[in-house]
């Protein structure tokens, strides 16, 4: 049986005033049933573009240059629009970053959930089912919720509703794009808690895109670290957090406020800036910021496969 979601050699570019911006470069990933994959990286590394490409809903100006997105083995990008639509919400569901703007402000929650479910199967859009799903994501008094408008709910509640909406059609893949970034700390903890609970009852694949290392550590089985549009390192959460190999991953982990030694009195940072994605050098994209660079790093780095699901994009690593 094929994986619920697999991304193959995907490249996405944006047409901008200065030329072609390479947002996602030759990314290959796959997620199994019951598995949670984290996609981690700084802002602008291409992780949100990658998430949008997974349901082929890229912003205007973006263009898929190559590669495929297979849902249960079928390449979604090759399907006609109507067939793609049938997959969205049904097989792949998405939870967006900002719950404040993710819902239509003039329609009730119940109406919107019913429309989302009704787009595929009107039989599933009954109030009973909606209420049951809202209860499942921990919303108190769910029956009264259906008549509420989005602005009447707190951010955390809306994100719960968004997760309930995503689970309505029992999708095979759930993609959460920065699901906790727009929330305050207590709400964030609650949503992480909710997602962890759902892991046990949800049998599909989950992809969580975040720059928050805590979210990855709490929720994920495997991690893909992205830098300048590429996956530079991939591995289990244990391997990444305890035996990271790529210099960028190590630098990123060292910057996590949660692990910094408070007695040092300062926060470490990664020196330098992300390279210009419209004019990338031929060699390693991290070269200018890397403290361990070799002369060979001016050439394209090799993808070193260490084990199934464990790879690094670096000259320093030996197979």
């Amino acid at each position, binding site marked *: 049986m094929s994986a619920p979601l697999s991304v193959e050699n995907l490249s996405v570019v*944006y*047409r*901008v*005033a*200065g030329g072609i*911006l390479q*947002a996602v470069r030759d990314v290959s990933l796959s997620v199994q049933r019951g598995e949670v994959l984290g996609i981690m990286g700084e802002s*602008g590394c291409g992780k949100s573009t990658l998430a949008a490409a997974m349901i082929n809903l890229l912003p205007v*100006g973006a263009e898929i240059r190559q590669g495929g997105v297979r849902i249960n083995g079928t390449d979604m990008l090759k399907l006609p629009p109507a067939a793609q639509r049938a997959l969205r919400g049904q097989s792949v569901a998405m939870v967006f970053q900002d719950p404040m703007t993710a819902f239509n402000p003039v329609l009730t929650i119940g109406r919107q959930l019913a429309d989302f479910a009704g787009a595929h199967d009107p039989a599933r859009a009954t109030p009973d089912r909606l209420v049951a799903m809202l209860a499942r994501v921990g919303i108190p008094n769910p029956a009264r919720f259906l008549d509420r408008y989005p602005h009447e709910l707190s951010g955390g509640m809306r994100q719960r509703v968004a997760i309930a909406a995503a689970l309505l059609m029992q999708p095979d893949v759930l993609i959460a794009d920065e699901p906790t970034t727009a929330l305050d700390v207590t709400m964030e903890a609650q949503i992480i808690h909710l997602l962890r609970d759902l892991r046990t009852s949800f049998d599909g694949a989950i992809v969580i895109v975040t720059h928050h290392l805590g979210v990855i550590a709490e929720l994920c089985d495997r991690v893909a670290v992205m830098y300048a549009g590429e996956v530079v390192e991939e591995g289990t959460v244990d391997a990444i957090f305890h035996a990271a190999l790529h210099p960028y991953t190590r630098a990123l982990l060292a910057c996590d406020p949660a692990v910094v030694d408070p007695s040092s009195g300062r926060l470490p940072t990664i020196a330098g800036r992300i390279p210009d994605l419209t004019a990338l050098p031929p060699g390693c994209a991290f070269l200018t910021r890397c403290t361990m660079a070799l002369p060979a790093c001016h050439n394209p780095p090799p993808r070193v496969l260490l084990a199934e699901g464990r790879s690094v994009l670096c000259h320093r690593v030996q197979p």
Partner: protein
Amino acid sequence: MSSAVDDITLPARRGIGRALLRDPMGLAGLVLVVAFLAMALLAPWIAPYDPIALNVKAKFQPPSAAHWAGTDHLGRDLLSRIIWGARLALGISITSVGIAGALGLVLGLVAGYGPRWLDSALVLVFDSMSSLPMIFFALAVITVLGPGTTTLILVIVLVSFPSYARLIRTQTLSLSGADYILAERAMGAGPVRIIFRHLLPNVVGPMVILICMDIPVVIMLEAGLSYLNLGVKPPSPSWGNILAEGYNSLRQAPHIVVIAGIPLVLATLGFTFLGEGLRDVLDPRGAGRRWT
């Protein structure tokens, strides 16, 4: 990635004309407007006949080689009347829009620069003037002053100056809050310098667009009121008068009213298209969203 959206720049002033020529609708508007302006300016030389000379023997003639557009119920040459009508329509429109623009400029500056209470009072005046259904206002003024060209111009000025005043006031207020204006002030620049150096160059674009959008309305108003016999008095060849006379002789000579409507349609289309084209060129931010 948001830089992709922020990087749109206004075309250089020199490029405006060229950009307008590339837009088929703007170009069509420009051609029509220039044609009507030429017609208005050259009326005495290009009109084949005297527009008010009677020739009752030759009444209700259909279009022919001698009278390209035929003749009306008094035997007057229709084409000559239409050409002179362009002079009347554009003359009245440009005069009244010019006065309305100047009045709006002054009052808008006063409201924007003056004390708070004056601003509030003027805004109340602008709002109450534009909150009245335009035509009833115009008709009330005509009742008081009696119909005629002067009344018509006054009515149009009264009806249209508030939109100019509002535009200027908004620009003034948004400018006076701008940092570089504060800096100029701090260096001792007086209001006159600020008005001429900063405000006026900023409002030229919106003003021109507003004028282009306003002129068709004014042409319509002039023709409409003249059609109702409440505007320019006959026998002056206003397009509205020609239409009204043609309408009255609809049974005998339907060609008159059919032909008399054409210049009105083309002139209003021309100014509107030109205004649309200019807006897309001068304010490209909204262009993708608007129809061109």
